[in-house]
């Protein structure tokens, strides 16, 4: 391993981490602005022009608040909970291909941190790990509402992971690979997977909403029943980590949806651009546009659809999504048999 390789990866990792944090930061502002728009209000507009400094103000506020650890809480696990949430939210970006290779200084630079050949499964692994943050934090708070939220989020995540895994199997049958890079490469131009797998995409998207704890599936922090859900007892930046992890998760799942189903960094007529660097940079821009559109969709749904009841959530997961996903697998198998790939 030469030094240039290490430096290149370090720059890439820091850039991706920075970008995902900044996007998550400004998603909070976008969410409040759009909420204002949907509810015929103005939204935050005091800090800076058009409220652009609002996320900074929120950050400073969270950092300077008093930090409270409840007397009967388990201190180590109480701190571990939000840290784990933040950690799992940040490590998924390692396998996402952000663009085609760049050619700089006589080197071919891959815009993906790690091209492991089980990339899709890695994403699933991290997603399934994400629930520990909520569970540990909820249990360690020593509060009945937090505990209920922890239990809820565990069962919700487990239920929707099954449908999510089944919906992705149909996609893998078509692509024949688990590497996110190869899946992206196969969708060059407008050959996007969503045109072949509309049902699979719908199931995957609904499950992503459930996995990121977004409305209409935000049962773990349902204010009307559980005070504040799993972060009832949290204050200061530990609360901030929980809230922030949700926005990073939104960004990451938007990126996954865009790269699995919406062509990733591919755009129509990309083969007409002769300079590979310009084509790659345009690809990155297109990819981020897709991600931002998905984030807007997350926000749009949140302020449009009411929250599910708990039994409705379970019924949707087990009795609707899982059978639909299995039907989708059978349909895909039949399609491959008849039409070829």
């Amino acid at each position: 391993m030469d030094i240039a390789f290490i430096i290149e990866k370090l720059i890439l990792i820091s850039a991706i981490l920075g970008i995902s944090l900044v996007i998550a930061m400004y998603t909070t502002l976008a969410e409040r602005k759009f909420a204002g728009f949907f509810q015929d209000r103005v939204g935050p507009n005091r800090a800076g022009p058009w409220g652009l400094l609002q996320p900074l103000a929120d950050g400073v506020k969270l950092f300077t608040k008093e930090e409270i650890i409840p007397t009967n809480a388990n201190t180590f696990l109480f701190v571990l909970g939000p840290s784990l949430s933040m950690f799992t939210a940040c490590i998924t970006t390692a396998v996402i291909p952000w663009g085609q290779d760049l050619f700089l200084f006589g080197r071919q630079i891959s815009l993906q941190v790690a091209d492991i050949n089980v990339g899709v499964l890695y994403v699933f692994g991290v997603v399934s790990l994400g629930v520990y943050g909520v569970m540990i934090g909820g249990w360690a708070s020593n509060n009945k509402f937090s505990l209920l939220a922890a239990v809820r989020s565990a069962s919700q995540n487990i239920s929707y992971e099954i449908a999510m895994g089944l919906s992705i199997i149909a996609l893998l049958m078509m692509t024949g690979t688990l590497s996110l890079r190869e899946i992206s490469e196969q969708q060059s131009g407008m050959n996007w997977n969503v045109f072949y797998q509309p049902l699979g995409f719908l199931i995957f998207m609904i499950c992503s909403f459930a996995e990121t704890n977004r409305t209409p599936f935000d049962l773990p922090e349902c204010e009307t029943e559980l005070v504040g859900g799993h972060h009832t007892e949290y204050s200061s930046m530990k609360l901030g980590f929980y809230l922030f992890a949700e926005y990073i998760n939104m960004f990451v799942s938007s990126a996954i949806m865009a790269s699995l189903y919406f062509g990733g960094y591919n755009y129509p007529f990309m083969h007409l651009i002769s300079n590979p660097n310009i084509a790659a940079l345009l690809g990155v821009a297109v990819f981020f546009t897709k991600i931002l559109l998905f984030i807007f969709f997350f926000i749009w749904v949140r302020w449009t659809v009411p929250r599910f009841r708990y039994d409705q959530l379970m019924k949707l997961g087990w009795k609707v999504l899982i059978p639909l996903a299995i039907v989708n697998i059978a349909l895909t198998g039949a399609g491959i048999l008849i039409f070829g790939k």
Partner: protein
Amino acid sequence: MSHSLFYLLSFITLFFALLVVFAKNPIHSALYMVMTFFAITCQYLILNAQFLAIVNFIVYMGAIMVLILFSIMFLNLNQATEPQKSSLLKFAGVISAGLLMLTLVGAIVKTGGGDVPFELIKPDIGLVKNLGKVLFNEFLLPFEIASVLLLSAMVGAVLLAKKEIN
């Protein structure tokens, strides 16, 4: 390099496995068990068995341990109600566990090897493609039978849990 890594990981695995047994609080036990599974996942990675590693990660760490934590949180909220076993039962447990260990040690010694570091005959057997080919060609019947076994266990569990209507 991978040899010393193996010993380090084995130490971590056994350390957390012992903590699982010795921890007073069942939640802590479950969390230590998560760490044990994580160390085992790393062991698979050293053997270049990527698929097995990641599936161990998803299924054991991500699903089974979450369910175990889930049920502990539901059932055992205060430690005082934990049932105390009689000393006869504890004695029987120790003896049977010792016998199991004796059998395992005997089996391992019988296979030979000992000090020689384990070498994989085909190093890329653990990649998804090769594993799938082996599983669906040579071992198709055992694979299908195992899945039917799991299905029957699941149906049985649902049947037991179902409320009787009278």
